[in-house]
């Protein structure tokens, strides 16, 4: 099938579009991709309709690269549709992989989100507050919008995913490497990675690639990055700056810590870790330098909204997945 061009679809679910940009960030490589493949669907680059996809045969697509998770019925519909039509389905980016930033909303019940967005929002013209409904009649016509689910799902909670490319967004080189690996596999030049593999990332954690000097750790208070003059050489965690690097898979090229920003954990948990947030929690709290409950609480006071930090990209992927407040 060497002569036949690679059939490729790129789509987005509950995502910001950054992932598509990261694909474009591969620069001229994108042209090679174009040479090697028919891009059958890619909203940000080419026009395409649901109907065209529906018209395809099952498995007609070789690869679908989807970014974003599932927040609404449209996301789910298209995800399922593309799954049906493709041989290989790649969850691309942290949202597709773990729910990502949108999944932070899982910590808040839907109705609260609506209240905040459509009723209490100061930018809404008074008296005109309305919560959008899936079906509405506008002068005789049925107007349909996707219905907004109770929570965000990572892709593999809705469909069967073959490969994952983590990152918010994935680092262009990694993206390139991933695509090349898939092409190689499809063209029979190499064995395909095992199903469910995380491609475009390493089997180790960030600290391994972080150049900052590390020593034994004890923390007597935490600082937000802007609160102190940081030592550019020393491990951020040791300086009291909460950094997710130790609990996060490497592959990003240590971009954040290298620029003085603590790791946010977008590449997800270590290969054999069940819950990234819980692991970071366990590590960070263990090194607090106190044996006195009151003092421990004080130290933790300097650590605002830890939950959202530790699960910034992973609420949907975490063991509890969402807030269970009734």
């Amino acid at each position, binding site marked *: 099938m060497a002569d036949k061009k690679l059939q490729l679809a790129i789509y987005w679910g509950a995502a910001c579009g950054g992932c598509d940009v990261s694909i474009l960030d591969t620069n001229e490589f994108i042209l090679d991709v174009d040479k090697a493949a028919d891009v059958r669907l890619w909203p940000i680059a080419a026009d395409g309709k649901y109907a065209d996809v529906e018209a395809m045969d099952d498995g007609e697509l070789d690869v679908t690269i989807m970014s974003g998770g599932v927040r609404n019925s449209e996301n789910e519909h298209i995800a399922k549709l593309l799954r049906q039509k493709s041989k290989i389905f790649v969850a691309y980016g942290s949202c597709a992989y773990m729910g990502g930033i949108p999944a932070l909303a899982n910590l808040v019940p839907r109705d609260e989100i609506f209240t905040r967005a459509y009723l209490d929002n100061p930018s809404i013209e008074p008296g005109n507050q309305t919560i959008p409904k899936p079906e509405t009649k506008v002068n005789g016509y049925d107007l349909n919008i996707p219905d907004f689910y109770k929570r965000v799902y990572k892709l593999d909670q809705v469909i069967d995913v073959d490969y994952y490319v983590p990152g918010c967004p994935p680092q262009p080189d990694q993206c390139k490497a991933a695509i090349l690996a898939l092409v190689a596999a499809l063209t029979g030049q190499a064995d395909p990675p095992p199903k469910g593999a995380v491609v475009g990332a390493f*089997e*180790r*954690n*960030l*600290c*391994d690639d972080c150049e900052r000097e*590390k*020593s*034994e*750790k*004890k923390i007597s208070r935490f600082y937000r990055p802007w609160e102190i003059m940081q030592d550019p050489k020393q*491990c951020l*965690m040791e300086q009291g700056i909460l950094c997710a*690097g*130790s*609990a996060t898979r*490497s592959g990003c090229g240590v971009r954040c810590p290298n620029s003085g920003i603590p790791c946010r954990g977008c590449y997800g948990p*270590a*290969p*054999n*870790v*069940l819950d990234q947030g819980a*692991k*970071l929690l*366990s*590590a960070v709290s*263990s*090194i607090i330098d106190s044996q006195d409950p009151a003092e421990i609480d004080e130290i933790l006071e300097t650590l605002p909204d830890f939950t959202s930090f530790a699960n910034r990209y992973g609420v949907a992927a975490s063991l509890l997945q969402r807030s269970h407040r009734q």
Partner: protein
Amino acid sequence: MSEPRTGVFICNCGTNIANVIDVEAVRAFALTVPGVTVARTYRYVCSKPGQEMIIKDIKEHALDRVVVAACSPRMHEKTFRKACQAAGLNPYMLEMANIREQCAWPHVDGLAATEKALALTSAAIFRVRQQEPLEGLTAEMCPTTLVLGGGIAGMTAALELADGGHPVVLVEKAERLGGNLARVDLTAPYLDSARDLITERITRVQGSSKIKLMLRSQLKSLTGFVGNFDAEIVTDGGGEATARLGNVIVATGYKEFDAARVTHFGYGKLPNVITSFELEKMLTAGRIETREDRKPQYVAIIHCVGSRSAEFHGYCSRVCCMTAIKYAQEIKSAVPSCHVLDIYIDMNAFGKGQEDFYKRGSEAKTMFLMFGKNDYPFIRKADAKDDCDMLLVMDEQLSGKRIEIPADLVVLMVGMEARADSGEVAHLVNISRDKDGWFIESHPKLDPVATTTDGIYIAGCCAAPKDIPDSVAQARAAAARIMGRIAKGKIEIEAVYAEVDEDFCSGCRMCNELCPYSAIEYDEEKKRSHVISAVCKACGACVAACPSGAIKARHFTDKQIFAEIEGVLA
């Protein structure tokens, strides 16, 4: 992994379990769990026939895993592990479900208890599926012992080992041997001379070919683990030495309480208020006189200076009471005309010969006056008309009277406290200290000379105030413990310990500070942390904290515990 073949054995424990729990139901349930090959109930699984039943089944059904639902694993885990071993199955392929202590006994409602028994058993079956055969390690045992401190305890330990034919490195900070005992004249209760006690030892230590004596020296660093320590020792004037060691005995002793801290007594201001050690000097010199070179007519001895007080140390320093009685008698014999007043809180005269000694003190016409805890007497200069130099004022407990005590010489029985450098020492050899700075033993009653760090032993007053016999006993005990291990030649290392998977370790060093035994080493080249199996005690602190999930607690892996959780809730 091929489908496991698990045997489940449910114990009736006579009627202990069977009366409350429907063991047959448990058995029936076990058989429904995938991977269970046989399930049996038996009257006493721990009995000989019970164990034989297990062995037989392991062989006949080629079982590769065993679950025993019976009493607490703290009771019989060893028993059943042996049984597995006897059948050629690795002992770590056994898991127990505690359906007696934590189910049959504390629960009355049979139905609910059986429910719980099912949960516990399924947890065990799930867990055992994840278990792996484990082997312990062995390591060499270096016969050399490092003894820190050349006091009576240190010297005794060193000699004990040397006499047993084992090499010893004896490190003493000061420029002479003898420690605090060398500052003492006679000893209670038999009034034999301290000098005699130590000179014999000092000469033997100096003469011994087995003992490498290092005066004016200190331990600088200690690395490695039991049987395989490496020590760096520095000597004043720049000498440095290294030594390979198997074990360490810490006998660093104590320091006397600084009497100046108790303001009531005006120590340092009133010339004739002296400490017990200053009196010892006088006694050794054989002349008991005031600063004005007068023979004292009244000598007041105050007990518990710094000890048993809310302000300073809460504990009793143990030797002061009898030492005070000793002084009363020595002073009396030196200055017969002199009146001795012994001012105490309680008279602690436990142990051999001490009660009689106390009585003899009374017969020597010592006046015993009792003061209340934290209600110290205070001392003032006497007036010209008085026939004494100072007056002590206090509330006497036995008469309930507020009294005034004449004194020409006041002796303060200063207590013992942990040495200022005990913190460093503890850190160096990696043992812990209690709130008062004394080194903590592995078990206060059952294991008083060992510490929580394998291969490190403590003897004498560095562990807590004690008298000479107890210090010597501890020293010899520590030496004996070590000789026992040297005799064994090799040391077995438990199969249960933590190990780092270097592929996943990212060298973040989160775990390094967490180990209470400093079992975690960081390899600068590899940029990996590593657990010294022999030092690890398998608490699992590092495992839970490792953000990369790179540390594995053998026999308590995440997988196994996850499985157990699933089993309980299945």
